[in-house]
């Protein structure tokens, strides 16, 4: 038996690095979790809960072989959000999820990162299809799903989060 490394690949886009979350990201992540911006993902959360959530994001990679990256500014490494495929046991099917921290709003960063994540699940993981889920009142997130060409399907009723809108992305090879 050999030592285990939790493998998280690094992707780069024009402006962004998608990399493994690390301890130095925690303060920015906890600030997001404590803010009203985290309502779309079940928040707000205190610092202790935020720490647990960050460990769960990392551990997801080892349990599933894929997961969410920490999106950082390619130049400064400033944490900007989390984006990537995720599939907890209570999800209707694997989705590409995106979360932006406050400082990253309004610059097309979630779009750029989510496109890289979608390319990854299609080209590297060879998924035939993928969805994204949004809560009904997260209008910015819904706008991003539409901008990516995703089409709405019947909602999913999550036992604790409530209604999740389901958006199906264009299949591999058909996205523009």
């Amino acid at each position, binding site marked *: *038996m*050999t*030592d*285990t*490394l*939790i493998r998280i690949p690094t992707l780069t886009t024009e402006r962004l690095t998608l990399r*493994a*979350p*690390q*301890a130095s990201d*925690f303060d920015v992540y906890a600030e997001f979790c404590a803010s009203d911006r985290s309502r779309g993902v079940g928040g707000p959360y205190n*610092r*202790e809960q*935020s*720490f*647990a959530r*960050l*460990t*769960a*994001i*990392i*551990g*997801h*990679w*080892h*349990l*599933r072989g894929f997961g969410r990256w920490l999106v950082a500014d390619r130049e400064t490494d400033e944490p900007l959000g989390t984006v990537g495929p995720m599939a*907890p*046991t*209570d999800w209707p099917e694997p989705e590409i999820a995106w979360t932006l921290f406050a400082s990253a709003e309004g610059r097309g960063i979630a779009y750029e990162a989510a496109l890289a994540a979608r390319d990854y699940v299609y080209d590297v993981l060879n998924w035939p299809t993928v969805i994204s889920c949004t809560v009904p009142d997260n209008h910015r997130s819904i706008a991003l799903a539409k901008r990516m060409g995703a089409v709405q399907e019947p909602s999913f009723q999550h*036992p604790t989060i409530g209604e999740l809108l389901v958006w199906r992305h264009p299949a591999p090879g058909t996205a523009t």
Partner: protein
Amino acid sequence: MIPVLTTSRLTLRAPTPEDFPVFAEFYASDRSRHVGGPMTREQAWRALAKELGHWPLRGYGRWAVEITETGAFIGIIGLWNPLDWPEPEIGWDLMNGFEGHGYATEAAEAARAHAYDVLGWPTAISLVAVANDGSRKVAQRLGATRDGTFHHDHFGTMEIWRHPAPVDLSDGGMEAYA
């Protein structure tokens, strides 16, 4: 990096997806009441992910323990320090049906040696829920002594058991406490 440790009967290794059914069964059962359970399958899956993610954030964590001879997954044991903990601890959760063989003591001793000898911890505690008699016996077998109480919003009141310092273990080791 999650290293592999071995003891006379046990292998301590990274948790895997294959451990999940046994892990979820433990957390669905009443035996998990001292460690934050019972919880749903979904909560248990996230709990297993948290065990793994603790490693890169802290540089240490808890191992999945298996019986080397059979490969049976019997517990989650190791070094645990979430943000709401008083200080880093050595924790042990035995999966259902594996109590009473000394496995927790054997694995925790290996975890403690890793904390002291590899990570250079100067001290270590273990937290024991006040009603968890089995866990308290493990702490006592490891030579730990009572050192106050810690109250956690979710886990309730826990006894703090402080382990012998590295220097106290180097001279005779476990035999000194037998």
